[in-house]
């Protein structure tokens, strides 16, 4: 699905140059579930942002689905992103002014999907993550776990090839965290490719492959026997 070669991301300020990603090589195949771990500041989030095309590499190559995306203009990136990638965030990032249903639907508004089709797919995906009964509520009326399910639903509704999750359980208690992880695992089993950043070794165990990072480099990759 995607491959990175000698990919670097360097942040510069007037005085300091920070290498967030240092010549990373990474391949992810269709249907994989990859967990990225590492201490704070090791470059996990940067890697995820570059993967999700929210950030561009300073050098190196990033081929997504056969297309070299390093150096593409923002509008093109936005287009590839909306067709292929779904995001789940630690802090959910739901729009407070919109109901659960509208939040989920939001992802489809930027795809050319007819209203009836939108409705069907939103219903389907809400059902899937188990928040259909909360469709009319506002995010602020839901528990953290429920909010994250909404976020997952939103990430899923566009049928992305790749789901990127940035510490999806970071703001949740153990029980809700487990629930969300089970849901993500189920998605993976249904065929979604998932890349997840996490601090929790327990949650990393759900993944098929664990990538450990330190100081912008990939330290160890560990594959779990399928």
């Amino acid at each position, binding site marked *: 699905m995607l491959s990175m070669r000698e990919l670097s991301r360097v942040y510069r300020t007037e005085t300091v140059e920070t290498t967030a990603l240092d010549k990373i090589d990474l391949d992810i195949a269709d249907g994989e579930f990859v967990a990225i771990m590492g201490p704070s500041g090791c470059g996990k989030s940067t890697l995820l942002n570059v993967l999700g095309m929210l950030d561009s590499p300073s050098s190196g190559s990033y081929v997504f689905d056969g297309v070299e995306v390093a150096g593409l203009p*923002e509008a093109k990136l*936005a287009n590839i*992103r909306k*067709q292929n990638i779904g995001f789940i965030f630690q802090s959910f990032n739901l729009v407070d*002014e919109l109901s659960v249903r509208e939040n989920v639907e*939001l992802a489809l508004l930027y795809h050319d999907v007819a209203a009836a089709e939108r409705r069907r797919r939103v219903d389907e995906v809400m059902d899937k993550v188990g928040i259909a009964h909360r469709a009319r509520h506002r995010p602020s009326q839901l528990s953290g776990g429920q909010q994250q399910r909404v976020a997952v639903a939103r990430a899923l509704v566009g049928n992305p090839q790749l789901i990127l999750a940035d510490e999806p359980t970071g*703001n949740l208690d153990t029980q809700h965290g487990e629930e969300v992880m089970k849901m993500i695992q189920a998605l993976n089993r249904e065929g979604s490719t998932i890349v997840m950043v996490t601090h929790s070794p327990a949650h990393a165990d759900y993944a098929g492959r664990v990538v450990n990072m330190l100081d912008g480099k990939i330290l160890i990759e560990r594959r779990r026997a399928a």
Partner: protein
Amino acid sequence: MWRNYLTVGIRALAKNRTYAFINILGLAIGMAACLMILLFVRYEMSYDSWIPHADDTYQFQSWYHDHVTGEEAQLQMTPFAAGEALKKDFPQVEQAVYAWNNNPVFFANGQATATKDYLFTAGNLLDVTELPLAAGNRADMGKVGNAAVSQAEAIRRFGTDQVVGKTLTLISKGQKWDFKIVAVMKDLPRNSHLRINALVNLDIHSFTAKEPQALTCWGCQNGWVYARLRPGADAKAIERQLPAWEKRNIPDQNSGEAHFNAGDDQDWHLVRLRDIHLGKAQGGAMSPGNDRTTIVTFAVIALLILGMAVVNFTNLATARASQRAREVALRKVLGATRRQLIAQFVGESIIVAVVAMVIALALVELLIRPFAAFLDADLKLTYFGSGGIALPVLLLVLIVGVLGGLYPAFFLSRFQPAQVLKANQSSAETPGSGRLRSVLVVGQFAVSIGLIICAAVIYAQTVYARTVDPGYRRDHILQVEELSRYQLIDKGEAIADQVRRIPGVDVVGLTTIGVATDNQNNTGVMVPGGSEPLTIGNYTVDEGFKDAMGLTLIAGRWFDPNRPMDDMTLPFPIEPETEKALAARGANIVINEFAAKRMGFKNPADAVGKSVRAALVENEYGLVPVTIVGVVRDSRFRSVKLPLDPILFQNANSGHSHMIVRFHGDPAAIRAAVERVWKGFTNEVPFTAKFSDDIVQELYKAEDARAKTFAAFAFLSVIVGCLGLFGLAAFTAERRTKEIGIRKVLGARVRDIVRLLVWQFSKPVIVANLIAWPIAWWVMRGWLNGFDTRISLGPTPFLLAGGLALAIAVATVAGHAIRVARSNPIHALRYE
């Protein structure tokens, strides 16, 4: 998609009530101001455009430019002779009609009543200006002896508007004139410079038989000339030929050594009907005009207020951008393009503009009547049709929506989702927007301060104009008009004698100049050694005038009834013998300070005893040698807008137009007693008398209304500016909660924090003062220069406006500052 924008937009507004309130209220005020001014401007521009052929119909005006002093006066009036010469020399002129208002008396059933806006015409005015008729036909007005009345006047005088065929009897020049009513005019709309209650066609030659010079005089502006040009004729081409035309037509007047030509100081202009109301010439106008500057000023102020409201919108939108940042980032992650985001935010801004417009329209509906009454304009709020505001309303909403939303839209859509979406960064201050906000706040306050200064100066000048020492005692004067009627022409002294006997009456004077009288009479004065005649105001008074008016003598003496040389009484109509005798004999005059100065005397005392020669009789008899026996202090009889007149007073027992009654005690009783005396002399001239205080108030009414309108707009701008500041303060205080919490933990007192926040918001106000002061000073200096007597532009209004703005800003911010400063820092820190 749009429904989604709409939902988010409306819910975002509903969530931030303060923000929504400030934006919507501010915009509503700005829009309402704009709409009302728009209606007013449209009304002012619509004058006379409704008259058929308004583009081919002109008023012939004479504009004065004194070639010695450079003084200017633009009159709408023109001499009769000029109209005749115009008709004769230019075939492009299809028709030209002379019309004048002689204030005739309406006479019916043995009762005389004063008339208002009765026009005498020498020709058919209805053919030149095709005023709409309710009955009769226009052509009939071409015949001498026929009359047309307006519907309202017909009902007032006859109780019905079915008056065609009835007789209209007027008294003018002591004579009764009967007219046959042949047409009824529809009442003229207010947006016309014409004021006509009745029109009568009469033979001007027999009317002026006793004073034939009125028809040949080129310096006598007593009426208006209206001309219709043939279709396609070029008025400018005619105007270009007028200097040569003037040389051909205006005869020289020679009297001894002085050569006058009435054309020397006059230029002639053809002014389209619709350009008269706002035209440069406002002297001798049938109805008070307006000037373009005032209208443009109002329009600019309305736009400034709207601009401030738009700035509020932009400011608050960027200030609270951090609250929307997450949504923007998220939408971007989900694939929104920048263009879609910009469309979304501009759309939201348009929603706000729409809501504001609904409120603005409600405000306009509520306020339009008082506003119209106040400005004395006939303003109507209609939505559709030619005068409708539907299109401007739509445009205003779009322009305001786009202007207000565009910058925030670009600003918000620029966010990088990767930075915004990181946990714990959602409420980060977005860089860069702070500076722009400061600039905009400074701009807003500069506008507010500038407007407050202007309002203060205008108000001060208006009060000053009303209360300035006019050079005479303005209180306790009853001014009686209409003394120049034929019926009373030699009865002035007799009436004055009887009035003097009324208990409570102190002094009575007869005069041709009084408190804000229209009479303007100038004459040429030759000073020994001078080569050109000086133009000096020339007014006939009696011995009682000085004390009745309360003039101050500063050199020499006043007129004395026991000295024959003081008396310049001439019979009416003119008798060549007495005129010649006066020119040979000479007479004594009193002048004012300014006249003494103009005649070249170093001080008033120098003038006393000196002789000059003045054109006080018909030119053919030569100049009259006159000796200055006294000098009085300058008096401002007219509006302070007009320059001071140099004046020569001549003393006579007749030929006066006004009686000045100085009294003490109950004004109403005095007035009634004077009226009884008047009624004993005539029942053909209605008694018309006004108290000086009322006259002065009327004189400055328009200025007062303008000053108050200006003050109201300045006040609105301050409200809009403060709304914005209030919003910014609220958001800043909220955003700095954490910082304040930390400061408090480190030991800052409430006082320190309040001071910190208040100072932060005071700085832009102080900078705004530095910008506003020089601009306001420059603008107001220009405005004050339009007044002949004016206040000096001291620091008071500037300091006052600056202090007021600062006080309002501090008061606005302090509330928030105190609340935030008092809050427990633990709460603030826990949530971050």
